[in-house]
């Protein structure tokens, strides 16, 4: 479980996060949604420790992350798998090299075990015959899947996704959503997803936190979000004609 307790974050005079508390549960997908500029990316990066928070606590399992020194934080980070918005694959490395890299850095596996683990992860994300290709030689959807394979290769306890479906067509986005859901159950991870994709909300939203003006405005799940009377949330969720028609 990841717990964020009363966290606040400002950049100079700009108060981006205001006293947010959030619990992300194990074996479930925890979605952070909100408009652009609402503070959801800052919230995700604060939970990850990329941003230093001004107030509050972040707790990973039984460990208070915010009280840890650099070395202890590095150790926790080895239990975290992160998929960045653009994939953040290393351009100068092949698909295989990208995925094996965390194993080479942090595991004590033999070469053969590492290769087997990479094979398993590639199979798991349904990628075949791409080992020797460079990130620039594969499609956006494949890049996302490689990034997911790299994120899970060390068998992490915590999985983070920043806008996993941005730039993907709706069909590929559903494939990625389903993959995230399956991995969350299979690996029993605490999965935190930062998104504004309403399809993801409807497909895999076990727990959803709606961030509005730097505050946690609403919390619920994918069934509850469709019937809420929260005005700001409704304005966000049913902004498109398709969603309004669906509601009717």
């Amino acid at each position: 479980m990841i717990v964020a307790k009363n966290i606040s974050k400002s950049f100079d005079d700009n108060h981006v996060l205001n006293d947010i508390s959030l619990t992300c549960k194990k074996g479930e997908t925890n979605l952070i949604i909100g408009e652009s500029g609402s503070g959801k990316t800052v919230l995700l990066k604060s939970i990850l420790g990329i941003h230093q928070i001004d107030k509050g606590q972040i707790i990973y399992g039984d460990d208070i992350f915010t009280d840890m020194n650099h070395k202890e934080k590095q150790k926790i980070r080895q239990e975290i798998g992160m998929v960045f918005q653009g994939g953040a694959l290393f351009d100068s490395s092949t698909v295989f090299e990208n995925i094996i890299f965390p194993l080479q850095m942090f595991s004590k596996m033999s070469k053969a075990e590492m290769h087997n683990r990479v094979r398993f992860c590639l199979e798991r994300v349904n990628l075949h015959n791409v080992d020797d290709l460079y990130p620039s030689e594969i499609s956006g959807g494949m890049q996302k899947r490689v990034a997911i394979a790299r994120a899970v290769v060390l068998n992490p306890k915590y999985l983070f996704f920043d806008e996993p479906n941005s730039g993907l067509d709706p069909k590929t986005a559903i494939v990625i959503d389903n993959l995230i859901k399956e991995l969350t159950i299979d690996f029993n991870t605490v999965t935190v997803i930062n998104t504004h994709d309403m399809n993801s909300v409807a497909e895999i939203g076990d727990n959803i936190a709606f961030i509005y003006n730097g505050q946690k405005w609403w919390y619920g799940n994918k069934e509850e979000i469709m019937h809420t009377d929260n005005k700001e949330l409704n304005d966000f969720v049913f902004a498109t004609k398709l969603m309004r028609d669906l509601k009717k």
Partner: protein
Amino acid sequence: MKKVFKRPQKSSIFLNNVFFEIEKLGINSIMIVLIISVFMGAVITLQTAYNIELSFVPLYLVGLGTRDSMFLEFSSTIVALILAGKVGANIASEIGTMKIHEQIEALNMMGVNSESHLVLPKIIAAVLTFPLLTLFSMFIGILGGYLAVYFTNAVPIDDFVYGLHYYFIPFYITYSLIKVVIFAFIIATIPAYHAYYVQGGALEVGKASTKGVVYSSILILFFNVVITQILLS
């Protein structure tokens, strides 16, 4: 800087990175050093030869002038300035692009010390290979001068060769190598620093790259004066 010099997390990966950088920064710079040095040596020789008008000035000074110019200044400082452009821009654009595409953040998130992982192999590769490139440049520069004399007869070839051997001070090579080690450190670190803290897009990477090359060139010139004063005074 403190993080850059932290002990590498995995020595096998670190060594691989060092060899990769030696190839990229050092071996891939051989051709440009060769071209610049051969022409530099030839031009220094011809300019010296054509500017000696007084009959009592011995002609072997052309060889001596070429040798000392190459050894003292051209093979270290000028080659370092050229490498600041080529290698510095390469380092800045590589790290800057990694930064804006969140690859550095990805490394940090994995628990990798990105500063050490990315920058230290470049520093080691530069410090190891640039002195070798300088020695290579000295040799090629002298060869360029020899070829210029051979093909133009600007001075008798025997006088030129005699000048090359005349009053040779081995410390000039040591002085040049000390300079180039410091220049190598500057070339590997300054562009990396500017790129590591870049924010924005491709435009900012370009600006960081320019800043890295300009600042490292200025520092090379500044340290050239300081080291010369310390070592040759």
